[in-house]
């Protein structure tokens, strides 16, 4: 096994959605810069959009919505805890990004006149743009990477960021999951785009890789940002999604809603006004699931044959195409039976909820030279289009930084320490298999952190995560592939500890099910209308603190603020 050192100007880590965009935009902003895109899998098919996407969940298209309306919608959906500037920056740049993707060849649905065929799914405004032929999005991105001559390395797993002696970012450490070679990549600026922490909770099936998120995104990005000293935010605002039971695809009210499908209880009755995913919606979903009218279903059986076959074509060829096989195996036909739903394992993901590395409206983190975008960067409800827009911001910012800074000096001891940590599982003669440690860790996450959250349980969870920290020194890998799994266990453990600490810190309930604390059931705006930040403090310990909200740039009225508090459909009392 070798050690390979190289030097670039801009390094982008993660070649899924935000990463390729960041790399292209960095190169366009500084054509003389050496830009490297470093990916754990293969950029052709990596990340959440590996097989395409069903639609844009948050498109701000003129004529349908304004950036200001979008900021109000997300401020309400995220219970007020947002840095509005970051959301406004997204909203103002969202349409230009759709047009650019359209020019690049991404197919969005249009009406007869060639306008985007927008659909209403959110509680207040219209933001969903379907892309039933969105299979080729990765191909389109790949073409742009080639056209802009971006250098790519596949199958390199980044493990820790390199921090220079002056506190600036200096690159990353990585290893090759096929050869075990250790890589030291020095850079003047770094974009972290490693996606969600998708392997935190254990799916009810017990299958480690049956997660909602692409399981390649194990939380590596969160862990790397933390160890580099970056501030993270909103970690306690978990990601929990309504999914098809046992299958990890969304039941997809977004796709079926505009066709007339909806979420019901076992009596076939609607119980929520709006299927847009929010913590409040998930709370109602959870109540229905565990109440007498449960479980919950996706109802399509009332729709016309033509409509159902259109839905099938979309859902069974795009995004999560193995869905059709799952239904076939269970004998579920949308025409005849409602589809049973359940809630997902917990994860961290700002694309869907709000947990991520703290970034400003230029995608800058709190570490000089480090930028972040996509699911792992805290811009609530950012989804795919947000990953592209912030990918662009991050790429441009990273290019500018690299144009005016040199490489930071790095202590040799830092390199040696990381090489030893990474190679240790391969060099040990025997030890614990990574899959076994991961299973136990993630089961503990379910046992102790799955909402509703209970103080004592989370404290016990922390004890278990501490005990598992010691097991990390016993992990054994028989080959570089197992080494990848072993190092992922390190990251998952960090994320589990973050999830517990941030949740314990915020002593109130907020965001519906995402942060429902049994011992503090009320929302407490007097003390908690703040961001909860998490970082590694001067003593090297994981610590939380409050960050005041920036003053809103878009004023909210009371009705808007409360819009997402009233999702349950209340039946009129029928006189006997």
């Amino acid at each position, binding site marked *: 096994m070798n050690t390979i050192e190289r030097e670039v100007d801009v390094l982008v880590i993660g070649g899924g959605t935000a990463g390729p965009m960041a790399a292209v935009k960095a190169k366009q902003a500084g054509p003389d810069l050496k830009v490297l895109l470093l990916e754990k*899998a*293969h950029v*052709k*098919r*990596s*990340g959440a959009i*590996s*097989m395409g996407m069903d639609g844009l969940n948050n498109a701000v298209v003129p004529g349908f919505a304004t950036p200001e309306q979008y900021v109000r919608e997300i401020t309400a959906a995220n219970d007020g805890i947002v840095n509005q500037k970051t959301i406004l920056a997204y909203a103002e740049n969202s349409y230009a990004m759709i047009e650019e993707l359209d020019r690049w060849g991404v197919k969005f649905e249009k009406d007869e006149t060639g306008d985007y065929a927008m659909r209403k799914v959110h509680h207040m405004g219209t933001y969903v743009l379907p892309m039933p032929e969105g299979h080729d999005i990765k191909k389109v991105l790949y073409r742009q990477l080639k056209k802009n001559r971006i250098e790519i390395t596949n*199958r390199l797993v980044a493990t820790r960021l390199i921090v220079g002696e002056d506190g600036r970012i200096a690159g990353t450490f990585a290893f090759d*999951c*096929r050869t075990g070679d250790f890589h030291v990549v020095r850079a003047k600026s770094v974009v972290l785009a490693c996606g969600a922490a998708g392997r935190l909770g254990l*799916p009810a*099936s*017990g*299958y*480690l*890789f*049956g*997660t909602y998120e*692409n*399981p*390649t995104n194990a939380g590596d990005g969160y862990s790397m940002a933390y160890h580099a000293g970056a501030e993270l935010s909103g970690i306690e605002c978990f990601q929990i999604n309504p999914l098809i039971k*046992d*299958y990890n695809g969304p039941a997809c009210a977004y796709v079926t809603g505009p066709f007339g499908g909806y979420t019901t209880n076992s009596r076939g009755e609607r119980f929520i006004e709006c299927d847009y995913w929010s913590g409040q919606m998930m709370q109602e979903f959870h109540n229905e699931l565990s109440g007498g009218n449960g479980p919950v279903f996706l109802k399509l059986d009332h729709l016309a044959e033509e409509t159902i076959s259109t839905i099938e074509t979309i859902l069974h060829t795009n995004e*999560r*195409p*193995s869905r059709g*096989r*799952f239904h076939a*195996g*269970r004998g579920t036909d949308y025409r005849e039976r409602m589809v049973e739903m359940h809630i997902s394992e917990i994860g961290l993901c700002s694309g869907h909820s709000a947990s991520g590395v703290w970034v400003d409206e230029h995608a800058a983190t709190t570490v000089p030279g480090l930028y972040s975008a996509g699911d792992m960067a805290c811009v609530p409800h950012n989804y795919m289009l947000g990953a592209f827009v912030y990918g662009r911001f991050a790429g441009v910012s990273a290019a500018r930084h690299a144009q005016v800074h040199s490489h930071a000096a790095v202590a040799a001891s830092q390199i040696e320490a990381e090489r030893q940590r990474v190679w240790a599982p391969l060099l040990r*003669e*025997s*030890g*614990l*298999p990574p899959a076994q440690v991961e299973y136990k860790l993630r089961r503990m996450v379910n046992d102790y952190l799955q909402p509703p959250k209970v103080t004592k349980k989370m404290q016990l969870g922390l004890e278990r995560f501490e005990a598992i920290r010691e097991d990390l020194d*016993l992990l*054994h890998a028989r080959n570089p*592939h197992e080494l*990848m*799994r072993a190092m992922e266990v390190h990251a998952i453990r960090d994320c589990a500890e973050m999830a517990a600490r941030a949740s314990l810190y915020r002593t109130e309930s907020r965001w519906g099910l995402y942060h429902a604390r049994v011992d503090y059931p009320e929302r407490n705006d007097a003390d908690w209308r703040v961001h909860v930040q998490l970082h590694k403090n001067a003593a090297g310990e994981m610590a939380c603190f409050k960050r005041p909200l920036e003053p809103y740039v878009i004023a909210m009225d009371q009705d808007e603020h409360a819009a997402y508090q009233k999702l349950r459909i209340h039946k009129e009392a029928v006189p006997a």
Partner: protein
Amino acid sequence: MSFPTFSLAQQRTSVPVRIDDEKCIADKGCTVCVDVCPLDVLAIDLTRGKAYMAFDECWYCMPCEKDCPTGAVQVDIPYLLR
């Protein structure tokens, strides 16, 4: 310091991805499915010149099946969630 020792057992598992050996042309140099898999769980058996699933760590996402030039790959739902 003494190192703890570990006793280990091999456990069998049925894997969700099947390769049709008749159709697979890995012996002619094809590695497409191995290249595209985001979880890096497919490999080529060099003695037989055929692709196979080396690790039961599958997201049943299907790039392997979609991109295989000869239609040799079949992705099933993993048994635990079938």
